[in-house]
């Protein structure tokens, strides 16, 4: 095969290979150029699939709620909510929640979160002296108890020190997130959605598809430059 035919074949297949990318670049580029006129910054998208694609998820499936008095504590997506209000961030899902006359206590596997009954944070601490992760939270005679490994521990009056306990207790039970608070919590987690211009920009740069998508768009740009040079050269040679 002579070299001119070879170059023409490369030119044709490279051109065909980047067609989709060139279309994507062109359409999104034109739209971005006129983003202000098209008011693309004001168009907010909050479609479930798109938010999930961006990693902006609503309440996760493993979120749990605990009823304490006439209020609900919900734990999920790294947040704690009292009813529909975010009150703290957490390292892990809560294992239980209870309230005493003075305060409200939520525990994760390693941390204890203390709040006023109105949800104001009193203290967050790692419970010392517990040999294992906390797996359950309950109440015994008005004081919080936790299960850590095989041992049940009860807190002192300040809910500061935990000592092994062998009396009676009642564990708090988890339920699904109450429907009444679901939409408010979802809104908190997802924020107000994404401006359409942001999605277009990510499509244009290639970042929409993956963190390294911009490298592919760079490669497409390089191929375009190559095609340009190759095309000019073939045209010049034919003359």
């Amino acid at each position, binding site marked *: 095969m002579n070299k001119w035919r070879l170059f023409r074949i490369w030119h044709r297949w490279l051109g*065909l290979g980047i067609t989709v990318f060139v279309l994507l670049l062109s359409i999104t580029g034109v739209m971005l150029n006129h983003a202000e006129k098209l008011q693309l910054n004001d168009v907010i998208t909050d479609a479930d699939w798109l938010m999930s694609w961006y990693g902006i998820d609503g309440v996760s499936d493993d979120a749990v709620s605990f009823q304490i008095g006439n209020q609900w504590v919900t734990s999920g997506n790294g947040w704690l909510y009292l009813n529909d209000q975010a009150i703290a961030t957490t390292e892990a899902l809560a294992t239980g929640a209870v309230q005493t006359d003075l305060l409200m206590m939520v525990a994760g596997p390693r941390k204890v979160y203390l709040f006023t009954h109105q949800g104001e944070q009193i203290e967050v601490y790692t419970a010392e002296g517990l040999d294992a992760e906390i797996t359950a939270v309950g109440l015994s005679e008005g004081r919080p108890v936790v299960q850590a490994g095989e041992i049940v521990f009860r807190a002192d009056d*300040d809910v500061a*020190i935990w000592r092994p306990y062998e009396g009676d207790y009642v564990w708090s039970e988890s339920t699904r997130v109450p429907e009444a608070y679901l939409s408010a919590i979802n809104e908190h987690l997802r924020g107000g959605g994404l401006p359409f211009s942001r999605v277009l920009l990510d499509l244009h740069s290639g970042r929409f*598809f*993956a963190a390294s998508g911009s490298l*592919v768009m760079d*490669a497409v740009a390089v191929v375009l430059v190559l095609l340009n040079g190759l095309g000019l050269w073939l045209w010049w040679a034919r003359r």
Partner: protein
Amino acid sequence: MSIKSKLQMLVCSCLAIFALGIECETRAEDVFQAPENFLTEVFEGPVPSPSFLWLISDVKAVANEILDRNLGGLRQRYWRQGDQTVWILEEIGKTQAITTGISVNDGTIERLQVLIYRESHGWEVRYPFFTDQFRGMSLSSEMELSEQVDGISGATLSVRALIKLARLALLFDGFVRAEGEANE
């Protein structure tokens, strides 16, 4: 290899790069010393029961100024033996909290140690060449450290976080001592 095959390889390579969009920045926490071990070490034996500094508005106002953010919580736990108070405090470096143990004796820092580090960069602040600088430092009337702390290039935010925590521990210690004097 035919041209068609080469082209297929090219397209496949492009798709593979897309698929490789894996975030490699995640890093587990590094526990350099468990907080309970730090307490045992600084008290050289049994650890006293924790005490609480209630974060009334006066304390919070200065603490917020030092941290340049709102300090959450209504009480701060500490451990005390004579003139020595020990604080386990956390502050965010860039995105993650740095857990630090600070022992204060009679208003000056006796020991500062990074206990748990969660950031991907700046972990050099854990080394004694950096933390030893805090020894003997106290808090000036302007709520600044009494001496200059030499930074570490590439760990600016972690250095800043530790300086804030050192100032905070000294501030809290000052309030605890003032409270003690008022009660005497």
